[in-house]
């Protein structure tokens, strides 16, 4: 008798084995889901030291001696929340910075209400951001601070540094889009023809849920199916469940985006690509990237589907500074901040880079005097 091409026996026995495992897993999973879970996010202690309208400034409590003369101000995007940088103990960029002896401030943009629909990029950059920077400068009696931006917050930091270079000592941009003329990211393709005026005029602020739906549609197979299949497979693992829920909490905590800011961001950046061409105007002033003369460290993810490398890598060549560095990590948009591998590279690299550039360069006459 000829042997069957398909090893039916093997497949069936494997299926039976998997069914048995699944049964055990479901039993364990119910135990895990029914017992108390630690799913708190953003647990690193901080004080609110400045408030203006909906915007708050968080100042994280140092865990040891501060090793930098100047504090670091972190500016997150208006999309999703800054809690991603402090997702959980062991996966917290903020905690890692504190461990490295950095004095960390972070802007919490809050939840824009209907009344915030008229706030423009100018209001965010030359208004809130500048007030926060001035507050930190006054508090520490300094002339300059370090600035770090994330995604859209990075774009804000680039604009701020070009308009107020005298207040920024070093600039760190992470997954920051500055060149929008690329077909590599789906967002860049979709936004090109979007009738942004119609959407902003209708909704006022852009609802966070609509934005989230858009992000899920970037990869439905992975984000709407595979992700939850992974969850089902690991439901018996308490740590996995806790981490998964933390991420879910963060990812669906989406404030609305102020309408006028969204309008300008899509029109001037995604549709006209003005920023990288030094043609963008904010608060009546042209944003000239050549005025970014401070050192610049530019991080981006090789597999970032939201802000692809092509959207980030042109910046260092366009600024006025000679001290620039591009770092492309083997990860995606969020992985830079939360993956275990990047935890070991990302924060320590920034800390080292800042430490090397924290002190004022002494003039040649000062050096001679010391000798």
């Amino acid at each position: 008798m000829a042997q069957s091409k398909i090893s039916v026996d093997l497949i069936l026995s494997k299926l039976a084995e998997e069914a048995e495992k699944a049964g055990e897993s479901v039993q364990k999973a119910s135990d895990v889901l029914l017992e108390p879970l630690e799913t708190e996010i953003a647990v690193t202690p901080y004080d609110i030291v400045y408030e203006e309208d909906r915007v708050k400034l968080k100042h994280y409590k140092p865990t040891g001696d501060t090793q930098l003369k100047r504090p670091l101000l972190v500016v997150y995007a208006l999309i999703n929340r800054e809690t991603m940088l402090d997702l959980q103990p062991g996966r917290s960029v903020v905690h890692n910075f504190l461990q490295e002896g950095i004095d960390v401030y972070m802007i919490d943009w809050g939840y824009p209400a209907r009344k915030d629909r008229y706030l423009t990029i100018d209001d965010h950059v030359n208004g809130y951001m500048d007030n926060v920077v001035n507050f930190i400068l006054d508090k520490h009696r300094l002339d300059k601070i370090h600035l770090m931006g994330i995604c859209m917050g990075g774009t804000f930091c680039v604009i701020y540094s070009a308009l107020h270079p005298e207040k920024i000592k070093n600039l760190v941009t992470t997954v920051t889009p500055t060149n929008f003329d690329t077909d590599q990211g789906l967002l860049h393709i979709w936004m090109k023809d979007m009738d942004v005026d119609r959407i902003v005029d209708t909704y006022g602020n852009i609802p966070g849920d609509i934005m989230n739906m858009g992000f899920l549609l970037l990869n439905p197979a992975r984000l709407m199916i595979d992700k939850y299949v992974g969850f089902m497979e690991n439901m018996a693992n308490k740590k996995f469940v806790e981490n998964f829920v933390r991420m879910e909490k963060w990812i669906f905590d989406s404030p609305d985006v102020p309408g006028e800011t969204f309008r300008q961001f899509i029109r001037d950046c995604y549709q006209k690509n003005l920023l990288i061409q030094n043609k963008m105007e904010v608060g009546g002033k042209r944003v000239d990237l050549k005025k970014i003369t401070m050192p610049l460290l530019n991080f981006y993810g090789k597999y970032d589907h939201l802000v692809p490398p092509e959207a980030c890598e042109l910046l260092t060549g366009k600024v006025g500074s000679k001290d620039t560095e591009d770092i492309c990590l083997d990860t995606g948009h969020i992985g830079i901040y939360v993956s275990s591998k990047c935890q070991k590279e990302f924060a320590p690299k920034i800390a080292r880079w800042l430490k090397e550039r924290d002190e004022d360069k002494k003039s040649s006459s000062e050096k001679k005097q010391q000798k």
Partner: protein
Amino acid sequence: MSDKEKDDIGPEAFFSDWIKTYMAFWESMTAMWPAANMAAGVPKESKRDGKSSRFEKSWRSTQKTWKTWSQVISEPETMEAIFKGTGILPEFFLTLAQTGLKSFVQIQKQWLEKAEKVQDSTKSYTFENLDEDAIKVWIQLYETELRKIFNIPQLGLTRFYQEKMIRSVDKYNIFQSSLTEFLRLLSLPMEKSFQVMQEKLTELADKGNLPEDSKAYYQMWIKTLEGHYMTLFQSLEYTKILNKTLHSMSEFSEAKKDLLQDTLLYMLPVPTQKEMDELYKEIYLLKKRIKELEIKLLKSN
């Protein structure tokens, strides 16, 4: 029976006599008015300043008009004309009915023509594109034919509200059509991935390479699905339909807001969103102005 006698018992004579009797009855009733008042104990002094009550006055005026009219009507010449006219009535009603029926048939004919257009489109269906064509035909039918109904001008005092209501229903229909088209597009990769899986499995089975682990099948499928989605999302058609859906969603949302918030809410003692937006803008501009002045003041000091 003489001709005169025949005429006397004809409908004209009967109707004329009835009118006369009817008038005589109400005349005598009116004449009894003062006597009835007396009997009811209403004193003559109740007539203020010697004037009759408004009701009595109105009653007498009505009766006078009725008397004049009935006298004219009960004249033999008028009666004859009326009864001659009744002979034409069936013809009149027939004309009326025919006109109505003709209009109805005309409308029905137009609708049948519209329905035929759907049939024309369905004839060209191929089985593969059945759902796609059905959606497209529905959108076309709605936009070119059915939508015209919503454009019929509204009349009267409430036309403004009717128009807003109709506009929101129309925009809802357009949004639903676009959304259906968009969802159909999103379902395509799923459908195709299953087809590809079937082909792959057949191929693997033929070669005797079927994986033993069920996870391998899932991984194979999810990769295929992801690939199909990526291809779809980069297509011009997807961007076009996505924008169309977003546009129609915005239009529906605007029409709904216009009806519910800016029209119906306007009648309630609460501010509408439009009013609040105007206020927010004023506050926003004022705050900006104050900040500018503060900075100027600080600099001047």
